[in-house]
């Protein structure tokens, strides 16, 4: 871990926090506006790679634990971590790592449309699959509702997250073409 890796991770963590401060962006005719913070989690993996991306998200989670209101809507503190949605927060970390690992393994090169399509897939597996894989059992355990019910309740957010996966891949494509950095 070089100083550059550390600074990249820290500044990307700051970016994820800052994305929580800007108001939600409406996308076309979609009923749910995009809240950019979980978009930042997918972007961390796509742009920085698994190690630095994971570290960036881990820093955001650490700040939440330390009681700073870094989540969108000014939420933060230990209560979020032990609360019903705490699993999704830990899932963010896993999601960034999985997304980054997939994209580093299968789409490291200059980004054409094939790589962009693959990045969407990486976001679906990491940013949605891995996040929900931790979030849903946690929700089920904390609230005492069954796994299937927790999964059903979380399914409401899947369409919005699919849109975010596409948007994240398009953003990553733009960034890679403007300012390519190595994935680590």
């Amino acid at each position, binding site marked *: 871990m070089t*100083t*550059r890796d*550390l*600074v*990249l991770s*820290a*500044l*990307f*963590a*700051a*970016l994820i*926090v*800052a*994305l929580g*401060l*800007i108001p939600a*962006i*409406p*996308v076309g005719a979609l009923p749910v506006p*995009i809240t*950019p913070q979980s*978009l930042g989690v997918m*972007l961390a993996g796509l*742009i920085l790679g698994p190690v630095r991306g994971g570290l960036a998200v881990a*820093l*955001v989670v*650490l*700040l939440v634990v*330390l*009681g*700073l*209101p*870094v989540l969108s*809507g*000014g*939420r*933060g*503190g*230990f*209560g979020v971590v*032990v*609360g*019903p*949605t705490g699993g999704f927060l830990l899932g963010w970390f896993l999601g960034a790592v999985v997304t980054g690992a997939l994209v580093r393994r299968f789409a490291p090169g200059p980004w054409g449309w094939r790589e962009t399509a693959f990045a969407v897939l990486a976001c679906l597996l990491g940013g949605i699959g891995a996040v929900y894989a931790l979030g849903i059992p946690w929700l089920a*355990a*904390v*609230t*005492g*509702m*069954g796994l299937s*019910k927790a999964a059903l*309740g979380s399914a409401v957010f899947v369409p919005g997250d699919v849109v975010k996966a596409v*948007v994240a891949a*398009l*953003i990553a494509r*733009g*960034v890679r073409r*403007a*300012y390519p*950095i190595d994935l680590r």
Partner: protein
Amino acid sequence: MTPSLYRPGTSRLHRAPAGLKLAALAAAGIALVLTGSLPVLAGAALAGAGLVRATGAPLRALRPQVTGLAWVLGVVVAATAVLDGPHQAAAAGLRLLALVLAALAVTLTTRASDLLDALERALAPLERRGWLRADRVGLAVALVLRFVPEIAGQAAALREAQAARGLRANPVTLIVPLIVRTLIRADAVAEAIEARSYPPEKDTTPR
């Protein structure tokens, strides 16, 4: 821009060591998940409210935290009531309420720097094995806090510039330049840090 949730004060909770508070919170969390008795859970929720009250924080300052919690709590209780019946719903609601209030009390009464110190101590075994450097964790946290207002300001400036050119809000055209600027900035900051030989090598001479 990102003020801490910490509220200065002199209560007993404020004076308790951060590590102890975190350990107690973790223990309470495990105990509450294991019990299903309504009176015990109600008592715990009351105790949580008492703890928050004892911090002496004004209610107004708690509002953003509490409104978010109220939403989640309402959804969970309503869903459980429909699916599992009123007893389960009450238990789930009280358990959550107790945990989140206790956690809020810890957050309100503990400085971020104290929590960070407690964290550095908790990380010490990992540091001894050479898996990470606690001072680097501190540097990273400081960097995040320093750059959040900067990046948020840049996002606002980009948005304004695009609006002035008649562009509608679009996540791709807004976030791409924001990230590119952040990556370029990171290189400059990394160079500045290295030029100052920071963080210093660990002093390994015996005291």
